[in-house]
């Protein structure tokens, strides 16, 4: 639900990082925060537990500057990945314009990726949204670890129709982080025109 204000000439869009717990969603946002020029980023808000697990969400506003007279902003959110925080996940999806699904490549997290993907579709439906109409980018994270599922297999379970762009990443090192962000931003911008 992009907000376009023709009087103040502002466009705000909401991008949500979704995926299983401990998959690297917050790591993505934190890396973006550390690397962006202070002039284009706002304050990073993390509503997390004492153990640094996301409790409600992380939030980072990114300012693209003035494009054709419109101040263009992306609001990046993460959801809490842990299964029992579903009520929070559902709330964060309200008004979403684009989704990054961060999958955990580790073999032992195989099922969690599938469950989280299904959960995402259910929660979108709760907002009367269908995945087919929302820009989505997949990120296969933790590619540096030894015990990982192949990209082909991840594609099979999360992107069987090969409809969505995907990126391999190592979010802790920033590999693939900005490529993913740029792609989802571009897809969201296309929906505005």
């Amino acid at each position, binding site marked *: 639900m992009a907000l376009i204000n023709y009087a103040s000439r502002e466009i*705000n869009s909401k991008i949500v990082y979704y995926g299983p717990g401990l998959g690297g969603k917050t790591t993505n946002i934190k890396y973006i925060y550390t690397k962006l020029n202070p002039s284009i980023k706002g304050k990073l808000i993390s509503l997390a537990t004492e153990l640094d697990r996301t409790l409600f969400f992380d939030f980072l506003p990114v300012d*693209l500057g003035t494009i054709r007279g*419109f101040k263009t902003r992306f609001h990046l959110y993460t959801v809490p990945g842990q299964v029992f925080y579903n009520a929070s996940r559902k*709330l964060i999806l309200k008004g979403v314009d684009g989704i990054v699904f961060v999958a955990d490549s580790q073999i032992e997290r195989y099922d969690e990726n599938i469950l989280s993907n299904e959960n995402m579709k259910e929660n979108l439906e709760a907002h009367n949204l269908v995945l087919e109409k929302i820009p989505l980018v997949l990120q296969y994270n933790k590619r540096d670890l030894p015990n990982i599922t192949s990209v082909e297999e991840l594609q099979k379970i999360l992107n069987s129709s090969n409809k969505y762009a995907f990126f391999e990443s190592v979010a802790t090192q920033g590999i693939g982080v900005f490529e993913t962000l740029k792609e989802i931003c571009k897809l969201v911008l296309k*929906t505005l025109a």
Partner: protein
Amino acid sequence: MTEGLNIFEEDFWAITDALNRLLQGTNARTILLIDKAGQLITSVGDTARLDTSSFATLSAADFAATSQLASLIGESKFSTLFHQGERENLYVCLIADRVILAVIFDQRTTLGLVRVKAKNTAAELERIFSDIFSKLQKETVAKHIDTSFTKAAEDELDRLFGP
């Protein structure tokens, strides 16, 4: 495209006018209008010391979480929220089921006055937003965002995030 909220000049000025009258009528410090997805629509009053983006996001999250609490105890919603601080207070209410009005005020006014005046403003804003929503549903809103905007924005993304 997902369901969007487009606000045009005349609606925006009508909204700002209503908020300014509320600000003056209550002697509140700051008033913000936020959509339920957490995006700031506009604000009036003193915003110099306030991170309005963060405030908008957290207010929407607060309201959403509280609405879920309401449903857990069998209420359809809590239509207003009040947070009391030592110096500053926050009064929040929902308008037209989609927009959140947040009033920040201190000891220069009272909760009672804010509540009464905000109720009047809420009714006025409800009319304005009902018009906006029906306009968005009925008419094909002329696209001011065209492919040249998309191209320019993509170029800017490449410049900021690398090619």
